[in-house]
């Protein structure tokens, strides 16, 4: 069963566009919700969210969690070609369960 569901599965945008990625999860001993970026090799950590409604920001990326509705979104503003990657969402209960990822392609 899919504990973490990400949408869309993929999208193609142009440089400068804003992208919103969605992640819904099941709650069983919820500890945190994490976002990772994976380019060619290993996933790299972006955000960890534990509280609802508190936006985390890093440059053009931001993320927020809704623990009542059990979802999180990741926003990327003013996209650049270097943002092209697979974005992975993971639910941390006693282990990290990843979603299938959203493949973002940013065209120049």
């Amino acid at each position, binding site marked *: 069963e899919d504990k973490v569901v990400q949408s869309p599965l993929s999208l193609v945008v142009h440089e400068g566009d804003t992208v919103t990625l969605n992640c819904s999860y099941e709650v069983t001993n919820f500890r945190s919700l994490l976002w*990772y970026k994976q380019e060619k090799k290993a*996933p790299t950590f972006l955000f960890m969210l534990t509280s609802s409604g508190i936006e985390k920001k890093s440059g053009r990326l931001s993320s927020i969690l809704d623990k009542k509705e059990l979802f999180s979104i990741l926003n990327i503003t003013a996209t650049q070609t270097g943002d092209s990657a697979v974005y992975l969402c993971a639910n*941390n209960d006693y282990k990290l369960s990843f979603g299938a990822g959203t493949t973002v392609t940013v065209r120049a």
Partner: protein
Amino acid sequence: DTAVSQTPKYLVTQMGNDKSIKCEQNLGHDTMYWYKQDSKKFLKIMFSYNNKELIINETVPNRFSPKSPDKAHLNLHINSLELGDSAVYFCASSPKLPASGMNTGELFFGEGSRLTVL
């Protein structure tokens, strides 16, 4: 210095063979993991060790046997390789929250070992 290092990075072998992948972390973390990423990029946990003790063992065939000689090392041995074992295997480690001792959830990944079974 590489924080989480895996060897080999690439492995091509025949069905039925036995192979091992090694992983070492120099971050001082207590918890280490093996993840399998298939061709569709789905990242699935296989094993987790905390200070040399197995704490998570997902539904992985018995042909896969992890070994943790100390908390900085977690190796993966695979017997009787099958075509479906072809994937990228990622080792990872994670720190604990000082107060609770629970894992933070933030994973530090190695660069992956791409296994191709012919």
